Every structure is written in structure tokens, then in C-alpha cells.
């Protein structure tokens, strides 16, 4: 009997060990609790990002303070980051140790990678629709937006596969900040919609130098007429405007096509003359713009407070500042009748925890960030746009917009023009498909342009062969051959039939266990027989 017990125990232990090899199932899928337990204390962590802007930090603090007054049993601990890359890195590191934050400001591209951990990120559909604690829910302690009041375009950006995994927090796009004074000095008028042909033409004209090597336009030794901050956005938007491939929603990589090549060769021309450069190669566009060393700077609308000679935030020495009139336009277009511009900006995701009450507490806080107080205050810090129609249409926000140029800080005209650019053109915005690997593809898109410009500066020959080699180099560098065709769905991909070696191994294991069983049964039977 003792032997039988031992064998059984060993068997159970071995089975447990073997099942352990298949990895943890993770935290159970989150189910919305019936009620939120206000008698229980919750401590949640919130990883936020600010644009090194003190006002934004203050708004987060005030939001937390106000929220904690409404929910005294929830304590929010904030950790501030100044770049999304660090948040992404830290989240990835913490997923493996189950120490993710509760609430996190992030990009949908990044969420797709977080979701590779089983049940790591909470699907928000049920939470949003919950009659008590969902958007506009009956039990909320604050006046939040309803689901319909979140701008549908922005909410759609947070949908991965068939489910919503984030709520938008702020939205921005890219804007073209123009030194209008210089453009007019060159004999041009700034059109309502700038085309790529026009911007290349004016930029080329601005490269003219006198005999001493001084630029005629600004009388300085430095002039970079056109600087693009985010070359990944540049490539993505150019491809979209051209109707060329970037990727499919399923993650099939399409970027290495002839249109991309054509555009890279065009960029080559303007890098050669010095008409075009990038942030990675030359530094912040705003610094060159404000020093009168740049005519066209493309940067986020969320960077508007740095743009212009009267900008509230300036990062160059006062003696280098040049007086000029700043104009704001949408990014250059190939077809002005059908403009296309990217929608970007932070979203909020919630990480799953063992205690559903803790997840609900996180959701209550995340949702609080969509209230008018937070949305309007934060949007006003930069050229951001609130993500709810409730906030956008509020008297307070409309009053803010109407006071454009009233002062050089809170109502700085360039900042409000940048916000209006997005408000007026939401229907022309787009986002790129989100899948596990979409972050790498985005990086690769920018690197194509960076490499071409850098190679030109280094005196290398950039031709069709160069582009072909570049495609191959970038594919390998960003491991794009390993993500091609991957699914955007969070469900496990169908990996096809097992390899024959695996089948053979599993068969051997089964046979071995069966033989052990037979052998043991035979032993027992033999013993019993001998006893008789």
C-alpha cells in the first residue's frame, strides 16, 4: 500500500512538474466586479509621460489629488518619464516579473507588444460598457464622458484585433512650422496647403550662397531650409499620401516597394544640396527655425510652444534668436485635394492584476483622466487636442481657442493654430496598423530616410543599388523578416502541424509512460498471484 502511495505521489509530482514546463497561464482574465469595494484600500501605480513641461506635471498631480478626494480608498503613485521608449522598456522588463504598473500612458504600437504576455493588458470593452462603472456609468463619483463622447476616430486607434485595449488620452498630429518672413523674402507666398513640390522648390532656393560661402537669405554660415523631426512619420505619411504600401493590418511588411525607392531618391537630391536634413542628423528643428537657420520645420503639434521667435519655450541663446513671423500649416501633401496626416498622441492602458478590485480602481482613475478638467488643462499646455467631444465643445475650451494670440504664453498663437490644425482636419487623419512588431517597422521606416541623408553627407553614392542594399540591411537590422505576416490578433497564431521530430519525441514519451504503467501493473498482479 505504501509503495502504491509513493508511486502515486511521484506520478502526481511528475505530472505537476511537466505541466509547469508549459509556462504559466498568467493572471486569470479580468471580470468586472459587481461592486467596487470602497471599504478596501487600493494602492495603484501610474506611469506617466510629460514633455519636460512643468505645467503638465502639475496637472497630473492635481488630477491625482482631486481623484483621491473622490475615492479616498485609492492611492495613486505616479512615476514620471520623459520619453515613451523608457516606459516601453520598463514595462517589457516588468511583465516577466508581474510588476507592471496599474495604469500606463503609452502608444498602441507598444501595447501590441505588451499583449504578447498572456492576459497582461486588460481588454476595456466590458469595462467601458459597464452600466455602473463604465463610461458615463451611474456609480461614478465624477462627470466623465460617455463612450459616444470620445472622438470615434481616436477610440478606433486603440482597437487591437477586435477589442479595445486603451483609451486615448491626448491627440496631436504633425505640423509644418514656417518662417513666413523668409519665404516671402524669397518671393513666395505660403499656400493654404503646402505641396511636396513647393517645399522642395523653396528649400532649394534657400540654399543659395554668396562668394564667401554665406547664405544669401539669412546672412549666416548655417542654413538647413527644411528639417523633419520624425522621419518615421515622414515616410509613413508620404507612403499614405501616395497610396503605397506600408503594412497590412495583419502585419505583412510592404514598405520595401518602388514608391519608397522613388521617394528616397527624391530625398537624396535635396540632401545633396543641403536643402533637407533631419533631427537625428542635425538636432532640434525648433532651434534652427528660431535662429533663422531654417524655413520649414516639421514637428508635432505637441511641440508648438518651442516654435517661433516669440515662443514661450526657447532653447537657444537670446543673441541667436531671429525675429520672424511664424505660420502653421499641415504637413506637405502630394494631393492637396485629398490630404493625409498622421494622428498620434498618448493613450492609456491598464494592466491586469490578480485582484479584480484593483483593476477596477485602475479603470476608475484612467477614466478620470478623460474628465473635462484634466482634458482641457492638459491640452492647453501644448498643441494637443482633447480626445472627447465633451471637452472640445465645452465653453471653457471654446473660450481658450477664441483667445488666440491674446498673450504669448497660455494663448500663444502658434500653439493654438497647431491645435486648430488637428481639430479642423480630424477626418484627414490616419494611423498605422498595430501588431506585434509594428514598432520595429515604424523605426525602420524612419531609418531608411536617415541612412540616405547620412550617406549623402558622408559622400557615399546613393543610387538604386544602394537602396536595394539598404532594404536588405534594414530588414535584417529590425528583424522585419521575422515579423512579416504576423497577426494583429492577441490570440495564439496557428503554428501549423508539429514537426516530425516533435511528433516522434512525444510518441516515445507516451510509449514510455504506457510501458511503465504496464510494468507496474504486471508487478502488482504478480505479487497478488504469489500471495495467493
Amino acid at each position: 500500500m505504501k509503495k502504491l502511495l509513493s508511486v502515486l505521489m511521484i506520478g502526481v509530482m511528475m505530472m505537476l512538474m511537466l505541466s509547469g514546463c508549459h509556462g504559466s497561464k498568467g493572471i486569470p482574465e479580468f471580470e468586472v466586479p459587481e461592486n467596487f469595494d470602497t471599504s478596501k484600500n487600493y494602492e495603484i501605480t501610474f506611469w506617466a509621460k510629460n514633455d519636460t513641461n512643468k505645467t503638465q506635471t502639475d496637472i497630473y498631480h492635481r488630477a491625482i489629488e482631486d481623484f483621491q478626494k473622490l475615492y479616498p480608498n485609492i492611492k495613486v503613485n505616479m512615476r514620471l518619464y520623459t520619453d515613451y521608449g523608457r516606459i516601453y522598456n520598463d514595462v517589457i522588463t516588468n511583465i516577466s516579473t508581474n510588476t507592471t504598473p496599474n495604469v500606463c500612458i503609452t502608444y498602441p504600437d507598444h501595447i501590441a507588444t505588451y499583449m504578447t504576455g498572456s492576459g497582461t493588458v486588460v481588454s476595456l470593452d466590458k469595462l467601458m460598457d459597464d452600466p455602473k462603472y463604465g463610461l458615463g456609468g451611474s456609480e461614478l463619483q465624477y462627470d466623465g464622458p460617455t463612450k459616444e463622447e470620445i472622438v470615434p476616430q481616436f477610440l478606433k486607434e486603440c482597437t487591437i484585433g477586435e477589442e479595445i485595449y486603451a483609451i486615448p488620452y491626448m491627440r496631436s498630429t504633425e505640423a509644418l512650422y514656417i518662417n513666413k518672413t523668409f519665404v516671402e523674402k524669397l518671393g513666395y507666398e505660403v499656400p493654404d496647403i503646402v505641396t511636396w513640390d513647393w517645399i522642395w522648390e523653396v528649400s532649394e532656393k534657400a540654399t543659395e550662397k554668396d562668394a564667401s560661402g554665406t547664405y544669401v537669405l539669412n546672412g549666416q554660415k548655417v542654413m538647413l531650409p527644411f528639417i523633419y523631426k520624425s522621419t518615421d512619420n515622414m515616410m509613413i505619411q508620404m507612403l499614405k499620401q501616395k497610396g503605397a504600401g506600408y503594412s497590412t493590418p495583419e502585419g505583412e511588411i510592404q514598405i520595401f516597394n518602388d514608391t519608397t525607392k522613388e521617394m528616397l531618391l527624391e530625398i537624396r537630391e535635396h540632401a545633396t544640396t543641403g536643402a533637407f536634413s533631419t533631427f537625428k542628423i542635425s538636432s532640434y528643428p525648433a532651434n534652427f527655425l528660431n535662429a533663422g537657420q531654417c524655413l520649414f520645420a516639421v514637428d508635432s503639434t505637441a511641440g508648438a510652444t518651442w516654435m517661433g521667435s516669440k515662443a514661450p519655450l526657447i532653447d537657444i541663446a537670446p543673441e541667436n534668436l531671429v525675429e520672424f513671423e511664424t505660420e502653421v500649416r499641415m504637413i506637405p501633401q502630394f494631393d492637396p485635394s485629398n490630404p493625409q496626416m498622421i494622428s498620434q498622441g498618448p493613450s492609456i492602458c491598464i494592466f491586469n492584476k490578480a485582484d479584480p478590485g484593483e483593476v477596477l480602481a485602475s479603470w476608475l482613475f484612467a477614466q478620470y483622466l478623460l474628465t473635462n478638467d484634466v482634458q482641457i488643462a492638459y491640452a492647453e499646455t501644448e498643441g494637443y487636442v482633447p480626445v472627447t467631444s465633451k471637452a472640445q465643445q465645452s465653453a471653457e475650451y471654446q473660450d481658450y481657442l477664441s483667445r488666440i494670440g491674446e498673450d504669448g504664453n497660455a494663448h500663444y498663437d502658434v500653439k493654438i493654430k497647431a491645435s486648430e490644425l488637428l481639430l479642423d482636419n480630424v477626418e484627414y487623419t490616419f494611423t498605422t496598423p498595430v501588431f506585434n512588431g509594428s514598432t520595429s517597422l515604424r523605426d525602420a521606416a524612419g531609418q531608411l530616410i536617415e541612412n540616405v541623408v547620412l550617406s549623402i553627407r558622408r559622400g557615399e553614392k546613393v543610387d538604386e543599388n544602394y537602396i536595394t542594399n539598404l532594404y536588405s540591411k534594414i530588414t535584417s537590422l529590425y528583424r522585419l523578416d521575422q515579423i512579416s505576416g504576423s497577426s494583429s490578433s492577441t490570440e495564439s497564431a496557428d503554428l501549423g502541424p508539429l514537426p516530425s521530430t516533435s511528433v516522434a519525441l512525444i510518441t516515445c514519451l507516451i510509449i514510455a509512460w504506457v510501458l511503465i504503467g504496464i510494468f507496474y501493473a504486471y508487478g502488482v498482479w504478480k505479487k497478488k498471484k504469489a500471495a495467493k
Partner: protein
Amino acid sequence: MKKLFVLLLALCMVFGMTACTNKVEEDPTKKSEGVMTFDEYWAAAQYDNVVVETYVQGKESWWQDAAVVYTQDGNGAYFLYNLPCTQEQYDKLTVGTKIKVTGFKDAYSEMIEISPESFEIEEGSYVAAAADYTSIIANTDELAKHMGEFVTFKGMTVEAVNDAGDAFMYNWDGSGEEGSDVYFNLSINGQTYSFNVRSYLCGPETDVYKAAQALQVGQTVDVECFLYWYYGPQPRVTSIIVK
């Protein structure tokens, strides 16, 4: 007899541990065949190919297979921006490690640097002593010749960073929190200069980060730092000694 035996054992351990370091202090100005001298590197034009031998003095970050590393030889500094390396290779780049770097010379916001394409670890070690440039702190042109170097400024006075009279703040505009970069102002001879403890280089758990948080206006301090440059000196402090 027992005491002697213990002493002998201890000596053996000490010698054994020294042998384990496997690093040889050497003349840090000496170069191998085909490697540039510091003067040749400094004289090279932007985007020229460079091959240098240098020694790691500090590491700032590793992100997506690329690292930011402060290095120098016996004559000057080579700031390596985005040195391609795996996490495992990054871990091997301890202070003093000799490396041979191939890449091209670059400049970003006036910081002279190398955009490395590859590197290899070589035999040898050198840890630079902080050079005292207090006397030339006001001479930006002269100071610029030492950008990226491990330097010291002595006898500096802590000044307020804002109207509230704080001795330090998180981030350049006070927008950060504990864990962000710490900014503080130091003055000498009537001129005030901005210094910072960069959290990627020296995080909140380090002595220097804590020392920066404990600064008080009016204190006299000696600081050691890497002379980072962003349209002017932006020293990244690694040590603060309050006098």
C-alpha cells in the same frame, strides 16, 4: 602558527583576486598600427571615418542594442553615441576597459562625437583622473577642447535654481520628480553655471544623486563630471563633495 597560516591564506586570496582582474595599466596615449592619435581624430572632418583606441570612463545607457559611452585616452575624450552592442557586451564595458572603435566622426548640437559602427575589447586598462578645469570654466572656447572628458570644478558655490530659492530641481524646468535628472546651479567668480546629475548615468540610488538632493544654497562644493556639451557646457556630474 595558526595566525601565520591565516595571514598566508589571506595574502594568497589578495594576490589571487588581483590576478583575476586581467587588466593591464598601460600608456594611454600609445596606439596600435592603423589607429588614429587623438590629435588626428580631433582634426578629422565631420563624417570622416575614424578608428580609435580608447578607454571606457562611464556608461550612460543601453537601449535597443546601442549604448552611450564616455571614453578617453591619455590625450582627450571620445564620446560614443549609439555604440552597437548587445546587453552582454555592454556589461563587459566596465570603467577602464580598452576598446578599439571604428565609425565616423560626427557632431550633434556642437558635441563632437563618434557614431560607431563596431568595436572590439582589447587588452589594457586606463582610468582617467578628473582634470581640474576650474580656471577655464568661463572660457567656453578653451573648455570646448575638453568636451566629453572626465573633469572637476572646485570651490564652486551652490546658487538657487529658481525664484523659490531651491538648491536643485528635477529636470531643467522643474517638471520632473525623484528619478528624473537633477539640475543645480554653481557659481564661481560671479558667474553661474548649470550642472546636472543625469539619471541615466547616475540614478537615484547613487551617492551623487542623493548628494545633489541634499544640496543647500551657499554651500561650497567640488564636483566631478563628464563635460557633456549641448550648445555649450552641460556638465553631467558624477561626484559632489561638500566642503
